[in-house]
């Protein structure tokens, strides 16, 4: 379990994390989402005791990590930045870490096996690919068989098979009653892996909710309507809280009216429909929407709008 309360971390003038509070519970995978620069890595460094909070506090398993008698049984962590001496072999790296906490040598071989690095365990870690480096990092996080596992962007650099492996591993670890806290900037990945989400932007909490709630929030359904009488139908549908966009002639994207209601309305007014389909907004879209105002670095296009493809937007009641 991880309890972050009122955490603020400043590096000089720059505030990386501002008054952040949340709890990561055991038994489930909790995703830590946010755009780059949102303060995810900083929060994780504070959890690991590497950085001291400017104010506020962090507790791991209801205790202060710095005072832990058996740190590696409390917390295993994979930080985004590499934490391996490049000239040392993977085996010796893990052995040196294991020895500090009295983890038996046999466990070193076991975790190397578990992450699939047996063939290269005696090779210099500096020669590892990004994916192999991530596997080594995961091995060191699991070494002490910890209650709480914190992984910063563990799937970066992994191939599809590796991603699937991490996903299953995290779920297994959580099913064993452990606290699993995983950061990512990919909402779609978190939707598959996590049960709960902590969303941050610019160092502040944006949302603390179950994945299901997020998905429900995200799927403000869009109804795609294809009709030769599109403009007539649009006039019929427009009303308060209804948004209609159109990307091509004869195709409407309707928000705020159910597919059934659109079908009935069209039937009543003798508007011919060639297509009526419900489309769920992607999670990535919903995540972007949620964090739009807090993205640290916007990529500006020439017309000044980074996101939102060109659309014809008509909204009743809210003239633009």
């Amino acid at each position, binding site marked *: *379990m991880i309890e972050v309360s009122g955490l603020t971390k400043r590096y000089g003038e720059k505030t990386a994390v501002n008054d952040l509070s949340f709890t990561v519970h055991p038994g489930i995978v909790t995703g830590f989402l946010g755009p780059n620069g949102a303060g995810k890595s900083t929060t994780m460094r504070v959890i690991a005791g590497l950085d001291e909070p400017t104010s506020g506090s962090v507790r791991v398993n209801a205790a202060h990590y710095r005072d832990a008698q058996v740190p590696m049984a409390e917390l295993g962590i994979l930080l985004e930045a590499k934490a391996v001496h490049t000239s040392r072999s993977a085996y*010796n790296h893990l052995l040196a870490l294991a020895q500090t906490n*009295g983890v038996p040598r046999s466990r070193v071989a076991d975790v190397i096996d578990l992450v699939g690095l047996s063939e290269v365990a005696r090779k210099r870690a500096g020669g590892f690919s990004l994916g192999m480096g991530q596997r080594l990092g995961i091995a060191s996080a699991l070494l002490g068989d910890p209650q709480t596992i914190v992984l910063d962007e563990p799937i970066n650099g992994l191939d599809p098979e590796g991603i699937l492996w991490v996903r299953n591993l995290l779920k297994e670890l959580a099913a064993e009653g452990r606290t699993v806290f995983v950061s990512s900037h990919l909402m779609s990945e978190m939707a598959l892996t996590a049960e709960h989400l902590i969303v941050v932007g610019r160092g502040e909490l944006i949302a603390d909710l179950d994945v299901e709630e997020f998905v429900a929030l995200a799927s403000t359904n869009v109804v795609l309507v294809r009709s030769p009488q599109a403009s007539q139908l649009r006039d019929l549908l427009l009303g308060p809280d209804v948004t209609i966009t159109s990307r091509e002639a004869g195709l409407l994207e309707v928000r705020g009216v159910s597919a059934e209601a659109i079908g009935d309305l069209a039937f009543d007014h003798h508007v011919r429909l060639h297509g009526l389909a419900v489309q769920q907004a992607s999670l990535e879209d919903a995540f972007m929407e949620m964090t739009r105002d807090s993205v640290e670095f916007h990529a500006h296009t020439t017309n000044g709008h980074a996101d939102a493809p060109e659309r014809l937007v008509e909204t009743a009641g809210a003239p633009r």
Partner: protein
Amino acid sequence: MTSAVLPTRAELNVTPRYAGMKVTQARVVKSEWTKFRSLRSTNITLLVSVALTVGLGALISALTASRWATASASDRADFNAVATSLGGVNISQLAVGVLGVLLISGEYATGMIRASLTAVPKRLPVLWAKLGVFAGVVGIVSVVSAFAAFFLGQSLLSSKGLDLSIDSPNALRMVLGAGAYLVLVGIIGMALGGLLRNTAAGISSLVALFFVIPPLLDLLPSSFSDNIGPYLPSNAGEAFWGHPTGSHLSALGGLLVLCAWAAAAVVAAAIRLRKQDA
């Protein structure tokens, strides 16, 4: 999810999987020994220091013996057989000091320090273990190579009958002192590495302290340099391992001054390690 029902620590499974798991100073020492022996650069640098102590000492001894016939009166007056055979230490101290810097700054450069300090979040045991392993290994290697340099040097000097035996006055103290000096230089290097967290900065400071500042001080008025010079680490070291008549400090005084330098550097490194974000 409501946060009202947080499990207590007792309800969380934080029991270590393996019996007897716990961080102890002895275990951190064992870990640092694994780290020390598993880096090729460490072993190479250590070998270089041995080669310099023994090889350079032999070279200086051989050259001194071969040119003895033409040596000036003042050269002959300054000659000391023990100091000559230990001449390589003047250079091998650089290799040992650099090794000390690298053993800590290398962890910062690669990011390994984050893994080390996460496994041992109290942090200071890591510094003590590094110092202990380093002092132990370099101590043994340096004393052995100082004896090797002494005996090889004396055998080369014996061709002109210039050699001294180990039980002659000051000989044993100088040989053991050379070993101790190298360890202390290495500890200062290690502390500089921990204090500056950067290889280039650490090595530059080490070189400045031992090789740049002493000759610069000689350029100052002697009323000034005479009061400060003996207390510089390299000169304090000379007092207990170098030419017996060359220093203002006594052998014990020199040793204490150099130990004070090393202790100050280590304390500064410990404070930064404990207080500052890693």
